[in-house]
């Protein structure tokens, strides 16, 4: 997907004016956060924090052994009858999927939601090769129908209102207008059932791969995950290399903290563990299962101080608590991932020069880290990425110069005092008309008056007994 992240400031300016979208996003994220708190901390604060720690350590232990576990996973997947392929980047991953389709003469794919597939632009690559792709997650299907992009890692249309979906169904399919969500879902079920039954390829992502058994794990609610991975003869999964966990026990912890953190559910409706194609004595299931292990920048991140971001389980908890995300929605971030995880992953996966505003798209409130089931220190990463942006000279000259001047004025008490006097005098002249880049302040709020005497002065007078 083409990256527009350098336009964050302009995109966010437009986004915050979209009251309808903001309202939808605030509602959806608020609900999810409330549910997360209730389920993660159901057995008390200490227990919930213990679970986060346990998940964090499980992921980090797996990352420590990543090359070894990838080989173990490959060996076990292969022994299970899965064909394992590797892809360094988007082009290679997409080429694999096209080749599989060609090899088996496949024409129509049904797809389970996969953020990685968005990253690599899989749908577009398949469509250019003449393969029809139908998204089957209700939200992703609606995204596809409306030519939109998902705006949240687990709730792709959190930014859309029910009314807009109704209008879409009416316009595209002539649905009898209704404001009843259940009726709309029933309508979608019928429409998509035909697609499920006529496809010859199922495509999914992967939430986890358990290395010790070669098991691909999916976490879904609608049933499309099971249908896509059971009905067609060929199932292809694209999975990031960082999705490996070592043991059943680690998986048991993480699959449950993922769901609690994402939606508040104890388990999603379908916690699926795929061990391979149908066995000789089984009546259904795919006859071929492919798992494509995709790098696409992850091995680069692995070698940096940002390696911990690879622990991300894509639960969306950070997006749900982020006051910036809740003000702008996900699209303003300009790429696949928005919110705190997006502000970190986008520069790391697509290059700092392509996403320089994103590390600054945060007030560093820390709510994301507190919500993360694997305790990724996103605020620290944002700070370090800002350092990187400055080192790359991408923050903008006005800031480079401004900060230097500011630092000069704060390195000595004398200059600090003079700066204070200048500010006081200057305020008498310009009042609320602050110069750039400070003018952004007065767009939304009044600027306070500088005090006639600084604390320094008042203290000095106090000591002299003259205050």
């Amino acid at each position, binding site marked *: 997907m083409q990256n527009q992240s350098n336009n964050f400031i302009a995109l966010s300016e437009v986004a915050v004016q979209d009251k309808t979208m903001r309202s939808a996003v605030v509602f959806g994220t608020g609900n999810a956060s409330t549910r997360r708190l209730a389920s993660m901390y159901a057995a008390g604060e200490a227990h919930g924090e213990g679970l986060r720690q346990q998940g964090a350590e499980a992921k980090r232990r797996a990352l420590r052994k990543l090359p070894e576990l990838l080989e173990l996973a490959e060996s076990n997947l292969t022994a299970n009858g899965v064909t394992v392929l590797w892809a360094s980047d988007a082009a290679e991953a997409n080429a694999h999927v096209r080749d599989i389709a060609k090899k088996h003469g496949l024409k129509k794919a049904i797809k389970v939601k996969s953020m990685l597939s968005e990253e690599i632009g899989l749908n577009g690559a398949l469509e250019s090769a003449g393969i029809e792709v139908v998204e089957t997650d209700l939200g992703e299907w609606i995204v596809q129908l409306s030519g939109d992009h998902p705006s949240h890692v687990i709730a792709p249309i959190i930014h859309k209102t029910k009314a807009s979906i109704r209008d879409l169904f009416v316009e595209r399919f002539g649905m009898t207008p209704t404001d009843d969500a259940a009726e709309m879902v029933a309508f979608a079920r019928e429409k998509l059932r035909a697609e499920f039954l006529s496809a010859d390829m199922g495509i999914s992502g992967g939430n986890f791969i358990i290395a010790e058994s070669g098991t691909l794990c999916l976490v879904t609610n609608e049933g499309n995950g099971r249908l896509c991975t059971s009905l067609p003869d060929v199932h292809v999964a694209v999975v990031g290399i960082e999705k490996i966990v070592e043991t059943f026990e680690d998986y048991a912890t993480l699959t449950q903290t993922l769901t609690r953190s994402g939606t508040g559910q104890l388990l999603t409706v379908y916690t699926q563990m795929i061990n391979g194609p149908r066995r000789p004595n089984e009546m259904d299931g795919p006859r071929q299962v492919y798992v494509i292990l995709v790098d696409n920048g992850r091995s680069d991140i692995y070698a940096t101080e940002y390696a911990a971001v690879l622990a991300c389980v894509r639960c969306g908890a950070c997006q749900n608590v982020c006051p910036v995300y809740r003000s702008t929605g996900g699209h303003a971030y300009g790429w696949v991932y928005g919110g705190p995880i997006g502000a970190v992953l986008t520069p790391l996966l697509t290059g700092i020069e392509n996403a320089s505003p994103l590390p600054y798209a945060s007030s560093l409130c820390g709510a994301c880290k507190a919500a993360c089931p694997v305790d990724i220190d996103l605020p620290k990463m944002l700070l370090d990425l800002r350092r990187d942006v400055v*080192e790359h000279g991408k923050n903008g000259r006005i800031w480079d110069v401004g*900060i230097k001047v500011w630092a000069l004025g704060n390195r000595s008490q004398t200059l600090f005092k003079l700066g204070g006097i200048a500010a006081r005098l200057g305020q008498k002249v310009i009042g609320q008309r602050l110069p750039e880049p400070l003018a952004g302040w007065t767009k939304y709020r009044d600027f306070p008056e500088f005090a006639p005497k600084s604390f*320094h002065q008042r203290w000095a007078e106090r000591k002299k007994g003259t205050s």
Partner: protein
Amino acid sequence: MSLPIRESPISKPVSLFVTCIVDIIYPDTGMSVVEVLEHLGIEVDFPMAQTCCGQPAFNSGYRDEAKSVAKQFLKAFEGAQIIVTPSGSCAALIRHDYPTLFADEPDWEVKAKRAAAITWEFSEYLVDGLGVTDLGARLSEKRTIALHDACHGLRLLKLKSQARALLSKVENAELTDLTECDMCCGFGGLFAIKMADVSGAMLERKVGFIEASSAQDIITGDASCLMQMNGGLTRQKSTKRVRHLADILAEGLKK
């Protein structure tokens, strides 16, 4: 993340780090801190060479500039036994980031670690450091107040119970709720101007909850948040105001 057990500050003189915003915009708040501490019999000094902790530069990604200003701080507070500051964000920077900021300069790293070990935010100094919650404060008339939990203090220093404990002992102060009291006000330092539209949207939400709260005053521990919220409240012509914890405590101590 539990915070390390710290050296007790009892019986030690306090060097006040007033912060740049309090220094030039809200010096009364600095005075309030002094009044509260002196009321408790604490000896307070004010190193005149202090300027700023360096947060604006550090948070914007300018590590060298941050270091140069941090060095000024460390020089000014050389010899301090306890540092108290009315700002959770400044205290968090000194505690969490100063040591690593100077990791490549061993002489300064020693000073940074020392500063980190002895720096306290105002409310935690009183409650956790001195073990004091009841200052004997009394407001002249009943007032309903609510707290806004400033983010850095809340999440990095685990400040939440201390201010509430102090205020619950202030006679005539009635504590009530502020919806989303732990949701960011949108200041975030230079974020407020660099990402002004987002900051404005976050502020809009915060101001809405302040207006909806039954509290007459909102109390917070960080003057920067206060500046953001009051800037929005006056722009909306609201009669409500956000005040610093030190100010309401000092008010309660006036005879």
